[in-house]
């Protein structure tokens, strides 16, 4: 007995011990930070349940206050992902499978550079350039496909709409989704790809049959990270979006729902008392939503993985 115990101890080297301890601490720090944020948001957000209309920008209760904000957050993120996902997957494919090596390398750098641009700069670009450029597009949409509720108009004359905000968010989420998808695509086993080609598949069929199934869970993770960026983006949305706190699917008018993060950024400087609590409560909701979205995505990925095998 004693001998086995001592041999067990001597096998544990000092370096190993320190390393495992350090990694454990690192892991715990993440959990502690997350728990700390959750506790702070809950404690500070709860008093807002009693806040009256004068502290809630006119909404009757905290639920009526958060509802439109949550709607706006989800709508803007949905637009962003609808645009960014196919684009990012396409760009990633070009880099990993289509373009000649030299081109793909510089293209990769260019995409990574997009991630380094600060969000205020995107905001400035959104109000100063993109918005005004989109005005004629919005007018055309209103006149020609105005029967769709999305494009009912009246078209904004400054372009500060939720569609513009969504496009800006899409460009901000693009580098994250592209970078991860690209890595996964590049890791597809060469044997699978060559086998597909050998069976007479065209390049597109090869991508569809060999690359996509292999990369599916990776793409979903990439999209989730992109969604995280879109949900939480503050400055760019606060600058670009003309928000009036209503619930509408009309994407091209001046009346848009605000997003949680942008609303906090706009209202915090002048908020006092319960108003601050109400803003923190919206932050808690955003936190929970982000958590839930990630959780569901993981669950979906896990299930499809299982189904494939």
């Amino acid at each position, binding site marked *: 007995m004693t001998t086995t115990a001592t041999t067990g101890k001597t096998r544990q080297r000092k370096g190993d011990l320190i390393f495992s301890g350090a990694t454990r601490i690192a892991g715990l720090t993440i959990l502690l930070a997350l728990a700390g944020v959750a506790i702070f948001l809950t404690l500070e957000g709860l008093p807002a349940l009693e806040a009256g209309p004068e502290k809630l920008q006119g909404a009757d209760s905290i639920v009526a206050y958060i509802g439109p904000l949550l709607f706006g957050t989800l709508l803007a993120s949905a637009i962003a992902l609808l645009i960014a996902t196919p684009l990012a997957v396409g760009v990633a494919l070009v880099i990993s499978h289509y373009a000649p090596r030299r081109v793909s390398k510089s293209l990769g750098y260019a995409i990574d550079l997009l991630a380094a641009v600060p969000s205020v700069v995107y905001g*400035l670009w959104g109000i100063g350039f993109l*918005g005004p450029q989109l005005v004629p597009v919005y007018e055309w949409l209103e006149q020609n496909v105005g029967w769709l509720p999305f494009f009912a108009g009246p078209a904004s*004359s400054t372009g500060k709409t939720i569609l513009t905000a969504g496009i800006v968010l899409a460009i901000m989420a693009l580098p994250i989704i592209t970078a991860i998808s690209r890595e996964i695509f590049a890791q597809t086993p060469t044997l699978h790809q060559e086998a597909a080609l050998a069976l007479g598949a065209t390049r597109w069929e090869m991508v569809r049959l060999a690359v996509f199934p292999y990369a599916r869970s990776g793409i979903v993770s990439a999209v989730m990270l992109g969604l995280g960026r879109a949900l939480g983006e503050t400055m760019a949305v606060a600058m670009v979006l003309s928000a009036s706190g209503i619930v509408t699917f009309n994407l091209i008018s*001046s009346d848009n729902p605000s997003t949680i993060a942008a609303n906090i950024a706009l209202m915090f*400087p*002048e908020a006092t008392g319960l108003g601050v609590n109400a803003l923190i409560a919206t932050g808690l909701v955003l936190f929970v939503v982000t958590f839930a979205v990630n959780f569901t995505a993981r669950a979906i990925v896990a299930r499809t993985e299982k189904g494939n095998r």
Partner: protein
Amino acid sequence: MTRTSFRRAAAPGIAVLTLGLGLTGCAAGNEEASTNSAATVEGASGTLNGAGASSQEAAMAAWQAGFQTANPEVTVNYDPVGSGGGREQFIAGGVEFAGSDSYLDDEEGELSGAKKRCLNEDPIEVPNYVSPIAVVYNLEGVDNLQLSAPVIAEIFDGKITKWNDPKIAAENPDADLPAETITPVHRADDSGTTDNFTDYLSQAGEGAWPHEPEGLWPTKGGEAASGTSGLVAAVKNGTGTIGYADASQAGDLGVASVKVGEEYVQPTPEAAAKVLEVSPPVEGRAEVDMAFELDRKTTEAGAYPVVLTSYLIACQTYESKDEADLVKGFLTYVVGDEGQQAAAETAGSAPLPASLQEKALGIVEKISAKS
């Protein structure tokens, strides 16, 4: 965005420059004036803390720089937390003075709270920052727009939707108004500019503005933009847009003339200062309290009623002599010619009219330490 940060960065520099020029001018022209600026307080040292309205921020940067240059041993801090926050901190005793876009209101016990904080003496309230708010617009082919308060109210309330509406045409017989849609732009964040603008609309709008004056835009319609710079950018980038912003920020946008009496007045510093002179003081206030009800409905020729006024709130008596001397010195500088000029140059505010300035200086003069 870039504009504000540039202004912030440039403000102290310009202030120092103007101060420097002022000093050399004095020294050369008048032997009697010592090389000391009027802002210098004998033997002053220490830190002076203030908090409050962000509308004063640019001007405050100039005042800080000016006062600190004259008194190298002194540090002045100003936290632009917002008017409400500034009043709260002042009452709680956290800061020696507060800047506020609205005067102390006793509805929420602020006045009595401030009295308690000020060793049971009435708090001082002096106007220190007056800035005209311009109605800015971007409409091709129309250089000279004239509007009355009810028309402005209906435009911003979404009742008048076309530029060639008969009500607008009636006030602009010479202008060639297009049949374009009007896009009113308002502030998305809570701001003193909105508060004063909506106060003007509800007072002077002859019932055309059905909402209460508020810091946060009260209606759902229209375009929203964050911050003064965001609003100006939105008006500039759109077509047929109209908004309201600090007159100093209007840039090359069209600025509407506002109807006062029978005339149409442009937002000049002089016109803005004039409306203060004709505004009655709030009733039942102490001698040292210069709170006044802005008379937005004035028909006085040459007055411009769409203005933002800010007060400095301080005590008559402080616990220590150092504290009292610092507050007195700083307030004297801010309300005085030198301070008002510095603010006018960096923040585009309107210098106080002479009569009010004299009264304010008289009040500030009496700040002292507890005996």
